[in-house]
Each structure stands twice: as structure tokens, then as C-alpha cells.
């Protein structure tokens, strides 16, 4: 299956990077950069900033590839986490406000059909997560979306949804507890 083949290619290439194999890094880049650029661009909105972050991401991958443990994490999870973290670091450091428009729980349609994705693990993981997200209250799901896709902080989310900070924290925390419980079933 293509997804497995892709995953194996990425894992094998990551394993060659600690020896200083630049071609291996380029393989990882070729297979994953479009997804990670999409992730960074979604959070940062500015192409030039997303490009800077993408560069940081792969230099980080070059330095940290030895830390990646295929037994413990999937390669795309690891890479997406690096990309989100770098993009969020950049977002937090910038003075410019982004993703601040008010959002309402009713805005959240959460209707995206599972998408075929070249590099993500598989449609089942997505469908399972999607099913569990559907089980959340609309406002919880909306808040989680703002955090995951837009890189919003608790403060951002409280402002966008016009609720006190403490309320937002408890929405998110309750949502995460429900999510974990649902995903374990």
C-alpha cells in the first residue's frame, strides 16, 4: 500500500540522517515538505514566514533525526509536531495578530469528509478522530480547531469566542479528557 510505502521510505530516510546523509534529508523533504508547508502556512498565513519556518523545521530534522523513534511515534506525527511547534514559536514571537476574528460554535461545521492523504497514516485514524470530535460539544470542538489549525492560545480563543479565560481553559481540558476517552474505546 502506498501509505505504508511512504511511511517506510520516510522512516528509512530518517534513519540515515544521523550519519550525515544529505540525500536522506532531501528524500524526507521531497516526501513531506508540501504537507508541512501547508501546516505552517495555515498557522502563519504569510508565505515568507512559512518558508522560514519550513527551513527551520528541516534543519531541526537534520539535527534531531537520531531522537526519532519509529517504535514510539509515526514519522508524520513527529514531523507535523515539529512544524506546528516551530510555526507556533514564530507566531508567539511576532507582534502581528493573526486568526483573531470572532468565531462562534455555530460556525463550526466539522463536516470534512476523510481525505485521502499521501503521507498521513491512514483514513481510519482520521475517521476515528473525526468521530470522537463529533461527540464533543460544538463550542469545545470549535475551540480545539482554533488551537490546532490556527495556533491560537487560550487567551486568543477566549477573546475569539468571547468567554472568560477560565471558561476557555475548562472547555479545552474537558474536551481533551473526552477525546482521550473516546479514542481509547
Amino acid at each position, binding site marked *: 500500500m502506498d501509505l505504508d510505502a511512504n511511511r517506510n521510505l520516510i522512516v528509512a530516510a530518517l534513519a540515515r540522517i544521523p550519519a*550525515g*546523509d*544529505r*540525500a536522506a*534529508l*532531501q528524500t524526507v*523533504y521531497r516526501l513531506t*515538505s*508540501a*504537507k508541512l*508547508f*501547508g*501546516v505552517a*502556512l*495555515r498557522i502563519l498565513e504569510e508565505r515568507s514566514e512559512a*518558508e522560514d519556518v*519550513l*527551513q527551520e523545521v*528541516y*534543519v531541526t530534522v*537534520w539535527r534531531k533525526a537520531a531522537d526519532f523513534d519509529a517504535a*514510539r*511515534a*509515526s514519522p*508524520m*506525527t*513527529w514531523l*507535523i*509536531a515539529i512544524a*506546528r*511547534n516551530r510555526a*507556533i514559536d514564530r507566531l*508567539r514571537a511576532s507582534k502581528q495578530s493573526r486568526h483573531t476574528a470572532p468565531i462562534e460554535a455555530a460556525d463550526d461545521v466539522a463536516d*470534512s469528509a*476523510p*481525505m485521502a*492523504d*499521501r503521507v*498521513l*497514516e491512514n483514513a481510519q*485514524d*482520521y475517521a*476515528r*478522530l473525526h468521530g470522537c*470530535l463529533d461527540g464533543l460539544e460544538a463550542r469545545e470542538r470549535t475551540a480545539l480547531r482554533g*488551537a*490546532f*489549525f490556527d*495556533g*491560537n*492560545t*487560550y487567551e486568543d*480563543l477566549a477573546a475569539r469566542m468571547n468567554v472568560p479565560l477560565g471558561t476557555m481553559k*475548562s472547555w*479545552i*481540558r*474537558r474536551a*481533551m*479528557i473526552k477525546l*482521550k476517552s473516546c479514542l481509547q474505546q
Partner: protein
Amino acid sequence: MSDPASQMPEDELLAAECALGVLAGAERDAAEGRIARDPGFARMVIAWEERLAPWAAEIPEVPAPPQVWDRIAAALPAQKQNAGWWQSLAFWRGLSLATGALAAACIGALIYLGNAPSQAPLTAGIDGGGHRHFVATVDTRNGRIAVVPAAYSADATREPELWLIPADGKPRPLGMLRADRAVTIAIPAGLATLAVKDATLAVSLEPAGGSPTGQPTGPVIASGKLTSL
């Protein structure tokens, strides 16, 4: 509203917040510090990243502009010896497709080795009878010579052998060449100091396995001087 901490340990809630990315400022810094020094906490964060990552399927892929890779490559530490273009068959195949590409390819090699100008590669077009039969490039740093066939066409009974002819005019055997593919030859230790600018590379036609005498026995069909680019 029930207290969430009663249903999930505070540590794990913090790990979830960390993976989700909702923390800022000192809280975010503190959580990242904890990931670095607390493996148990780091595992919880990874578990939460695993739970959330499938959501990224909703984010469309966007091809990054090509210059991003160039910037990444430039930001990596200097290339290790014995790695990269020298081993790259694709590099040599590409080179052998057209000798017209020689200048460009060698300029490329020069850029790769640009951090060691005293050990810049040498190159020679090995010509005879109005044709460029082979193209040779000497990796002086690693003591190797790569020879790519160009217009050379295989002889029915004899094989091409490469010779190094330094300033003293005496040919030293380097190895057998191929009409159908590039070969890489390790320069014998005693000859490394002779494979320098202005030394001559020559190709003779020899019995299978090479000259039995240690000197060319067949016709020298082509030669060329090593030059630094």
C-alpha cells in the same frame, strides 16, 4: 461543572495543552523545559501528538518554492568527506550523457568542493583523432579519479586502460576503463602526488585485464592534460 483534574492527572492535561499548542509565554517555556528533562512527560506529549496528528489530513498540501530546499542545504554543516556527489551514480550518468555538459558539471563540482580551494578537483578531456573519448575528474582530497566515457566506442578485442603520465614522461597504470559506464579508480598511494595539474592522462588499448608489462603495449588512442577549473 466538575473539576477536570479529577478525571485526568494534571501532568497529562499539561501534556495535552502542550501538544495542542494553546500555551504561551512562561507556561509554554516551562512545558518545553519539562519535555527536555522529563522523559515520562515527553512520552505523554508524544501520545497526545499522535492523537491529534490525523487532524492534519484536513490541511491541504502546498508545494514549497524550490529555493527553500536550497536554503536548507546551505544551512547544513559542511559536507563530510566521502559523501555526496562523488558516489552519486546519477551525477556521473548525467555527466556522461553529453560531454558538452562538462564545464557546467565541473563548475558544479567546484562549488561542492569550494570550501577546500587548495584541493580543488582537476579535470581532463581525454581526446584523440578529433574526438573526446573520455572525461576524467580527479578528486584530489580523496585520491580518486572518475572517468566517464564520451565518444569512445568499444574495441572488439581490446580494452581501454588509463595511464598517468607525470612530468617525467613515464606512464603509470591507473586501471581499466569501460565503454558503457563511468568507473572510479582509487589512485595508488605512490601516485597521488603525481596526479597534479599539467600531468597527462592517456588511454591505450590493451588485452583484457590490462597491459601485461606495466607499460602501454597497444596504441595510445587519446590523451589530455589535467587542469584545475
